């Protein structure tokens, strides 16, 4: 396959970047999108040019590291996958593909296609945990949890923090991410003592990071590689309003 790429090149945060055209040839349809970039980078290195910097780690769709805004969508045209799981057979020979980094005020570009996603870490640090010493693992079923509740918590916990929700949202809102991290604990008994403090602290941190607001377009849910549902956002809104108007939880 022969592909024309328009890739965002940006030296660092302080200089302006631009799209640069690259032609890659001899691409196998069975290559992943990242492997195609490996081929391009080897080519660039052989020519003595600076290779394109991009994020990647496990390359099996579970780490959430690979980003890339491909042809106007995070992780490319397919749904429910990360960029490493996107294969070149999803494109046609001779296609032109535009590749950009995630764009949000809270995700500044470090270099080329790599953005700084530590804003997510700070949101987690603001309350996405339970403050007890968990000790050894308990016996199974020691703590009864209804099956639908456990399933919903598990589905929320599938979030890999890749940032596709922020990237695709027209408002660069992080509501899907934050709501998944709020929900996975709000649904389980261990998360109850800090439930209403947690939601307030995490939302406050989310706002402080400069993410946008949710206008319920639902784009995040479609693009999420792990299928995190909008129901989590409703749950977070519910808990947040509950905390602000009904419960008298202190928040730091």
């Amino acid at each position: 396959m022969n592909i024309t790429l328009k890739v965002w090149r940006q030296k660092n945060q302080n200089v302006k970047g631009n799209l640069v055209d690259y032609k890659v040839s001899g691409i196998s349809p069975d290559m992943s999108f990242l492997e195609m970039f490996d081929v391009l980078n080897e080519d660039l290195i052989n020519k003595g040019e600076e290779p394109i910097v991009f994020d990647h780690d496990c390359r099996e769709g579970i780490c959430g590291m690979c980003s890339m805004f491909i042809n106007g969508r995070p992780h490319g045209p397919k749904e429910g996958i990360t960029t490493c799981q996107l294969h070149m057979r999803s494109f046609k020979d001779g296609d032109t593909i535009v590749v950009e980094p995630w764009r949000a005020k809270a995700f500044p570009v470090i270099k080329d296609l790599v953005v700084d996603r530590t804003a997510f870490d700070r949101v987690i640090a603001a309350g996405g945990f339970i403050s007890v010493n968990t000790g050894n693992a308990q016996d199974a079923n020691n703590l009864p949890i209804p099956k639908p509740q456990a399933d919903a918590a598990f589905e929320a916990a599938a979030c890999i923090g890749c940032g596709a929700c922020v990237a695709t949202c027209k408002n660069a809102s992080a509501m899907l991410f934050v709501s998944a991290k709020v929900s996975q604990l709000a649904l389980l008994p261990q998360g109850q003592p800090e439930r209403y403090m947690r939601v307030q602290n995490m939302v406050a941190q989310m706002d402080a990071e400069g993410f946008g607001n949710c206008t319920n377009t639902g784009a995040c849910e479609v693009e999420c590689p792990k299928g995190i549902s909008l129901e989590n956002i409703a749950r977070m809104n519910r808990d947040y309003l509950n905390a602000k108007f009904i419960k008298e939880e202190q928040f730091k």
Partner: protein
Amino acid sequence: MGLTGLFLIMFLAVHCFLNSFIFFDKTGELFNVGAHFMATNWLIRAMEVVLMLGLLLHIYQGLRLVFMNKAARPEKYAYHNGQANSTWYSRSMGLLGTLLLIFLIVHLSDFWTTSRFTGIPTVDANGHEDLYAQMKESFSNIYLVILYVLAMVSLAYHLLHGFASAFQTLGWNHNKYTPIIKAFGFWYSILIPLIFAAMPVYIYLGL
């Protein structure tokens, strides 16, 4: 946004119900009775103030959202395929709302300011202010009729996203009720603007 939106949605139902009186009485006397009640009942007059405040708050919230959300992405994508994952009207609520605001300015200066401030010149057979005559006069202008119909198309799309979205914002999500809210919201968003749009057309055509 959600609360003020739902409040305005409720107003639409009342407004639509009263105005639909024009379809049932050719002389417009029934409609004028409704208009007279709305203009003189103290509870309605008090609600009118709340409604105005609700509308202004809704506009303020909308503008605030637009500016905050623009600031959240200072550098735009060269290519963003929005239609792949969301509807165009869910992404254009600000634009649709602005069109509605322009319409509202025309609409309020047409009917509201006359009935409240400058006064309606004629009275009908029952001695009520003849707002119906006012309506007939306004809707003899084809451009105004077209403006009203287009505004109702904007309203339909604004509601198609706004109705269910308001419930989501307030966290009212439920396995049983959310599908009902979505279905009801869909038909509400189609029917209410359709009935509204039928009014100027009905009067213009003199049916």
